[in-house]
């Protein structure tokens, strides 16, 4: 009996909370990236339900001419964009670029979310579907031009994992369909394998990298795969993304299939994205 009482006292000395058993909740991994973009491409992040994200994006001309055009800053191209979360899984976006006077619309849907706790999911997966429309006049007015010739369709699968507090990796196979191409021999469909990551440098800043490898024998000659490197700086409701890239377009058909510049030639463009979020409804 003494032995029994002794053992019961031992139990009482243990961690009381352990009596309740294991935590049976599932927790979603958040903040794999600071913004809905890594640099040019979409990231695995969505704007939350009822949140509007206003994006102001600039890309400058290449730095190769040096002081004469102030390292490209004289030649700016801009995109203004809006993103809105219809639910915590579905996000809509619109934008207008000065380049090609293009307008673009897209949705991003979360299929899987990385989670821990009771239900453990190692990856997050989202899909992006975008329509991009060039609105500049047709170069050849003699031929019969269709509205559909202005259209580009892009589909992207985002597979991401936040490995640690600071490091997140994303793979993003992307398919761009161009309704109209210059030559009959040009491909309408371009498949590109993208990879991006972010490494946090401090609580509020990170180093981001993004590369799209265009599968060989698809793109016209003298067009290259875009490589971008940048920094995210977050200050409360704003995220500033500053970067260098050989691409100067901000929509899929542009940066994936129309990048004539190369890092090796010093054709590097400075650019930034500014994102400001507003909570419109709760």
């Amino acid at each position, binding site marked *: *009996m003494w032995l*029994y*009482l002794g053992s*019961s*006292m031992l139990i*009482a000395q243990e*961690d*009381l*909370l352990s*009596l*309740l058993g294991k*935590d049976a*909740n599932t*927790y979603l991994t*958040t*903040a794999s990236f600071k913004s809905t973009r890594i640099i040019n491409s979409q990231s695995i992040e969505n704007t*939350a*339900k009822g*949140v509007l994200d206003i994006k102001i994006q600039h890309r400058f001309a290449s730095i190769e001419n040096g002081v004469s055009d102030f390292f490209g800053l004289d030649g700016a191209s801009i995109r203004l964009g809006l993103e809105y979360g219809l639910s915590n899984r579905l996000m809509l976006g619109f934008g207008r670029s000065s380049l090609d006077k293009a307008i673009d619309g897209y949705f991003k849907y979360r299929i899987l979310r990385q989670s821990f706790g009771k239900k453990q999911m190692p990856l997050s997966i989202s899909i992006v579907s975008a329509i991009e429309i060039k609105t500049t006049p047709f170069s050849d007015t003699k031929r019969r031009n269709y509205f559909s010739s202005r259209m580009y369709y892009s589909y992207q699968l985002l597979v991401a994992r936040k490995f*640690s*507090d600071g490091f997140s990796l994303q793979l993003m196979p992307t398919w761009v369909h161009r309704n109209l191409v210059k030559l009959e021999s040009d491909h309408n469909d371009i498949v590109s394998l993208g990879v991006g990551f972010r490494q946090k440098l401090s*609580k*509020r800043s990170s180093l981001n990298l993004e590369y799209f490898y265009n599968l060989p024998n698809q793109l016209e000659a003298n067009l290259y795969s875009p490589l971008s490197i940048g920094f995210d700086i977050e*200050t*409360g*409701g704003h995220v500033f993304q500053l970067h260098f890239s050989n691409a100067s377009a901000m929509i899929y058909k542009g940066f994936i299939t129309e990048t004539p510049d190369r890092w090796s030639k010093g054709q590097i463009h400075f650019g930034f994205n500014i994102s400001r*979020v507003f*909570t419109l409804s*709760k």
Partner: protein
Amino acid sequence: MKKFKFIIALILFVQFGHAQKYFSKNAVLKFHSDSPMEKIEAVNSTASTVIDISSGKIEFAALNNAFVFEKALMQDHFNENYMESTKFPKTVFKGTIQDVSKLNLTATGTYKVMIQGDLMMHGVTKSVSVPAEFVVDSKGVHANAKFTVKCSDFDIKIPAVVKNNISNDVDITVKVDYNLLNL
């Protein structure tokens, strides 16, 4: 045989008398901070707590990322920039009810007690003393408490640019409906 039964009964009685414990897995923690620019509020309704009446010991544990904020971005920043929830996932309180003999959770009434113990948050342990109120009514045992924590006490840094948006003082309200723990 009779003697044996008596011993069994005695053991059961001792066990029952000593091990009376109450618990909840849905304790509600409210977080409230007022600053000139912004009011920040969050609720965590999945905190766990256990009381051992025999020793007066009381414990709480809450997952930091179970705090739900009004704005999604605030929640992200709370976990990413302030609490560092990946590094320090849980906030734990382990303490003792000072005058536990005054507390009779089987009789209807309102009991005011002091709880003293250690609050472990963001990798820092600090001893705190919290006045609490236990209410026993026909529905069961309820507990309420309110106290203030200072971010600076727990090594939670508020950058100068957001000093006007985020206050150093955070009011925490605790609300629990306790159930008897059957072991």
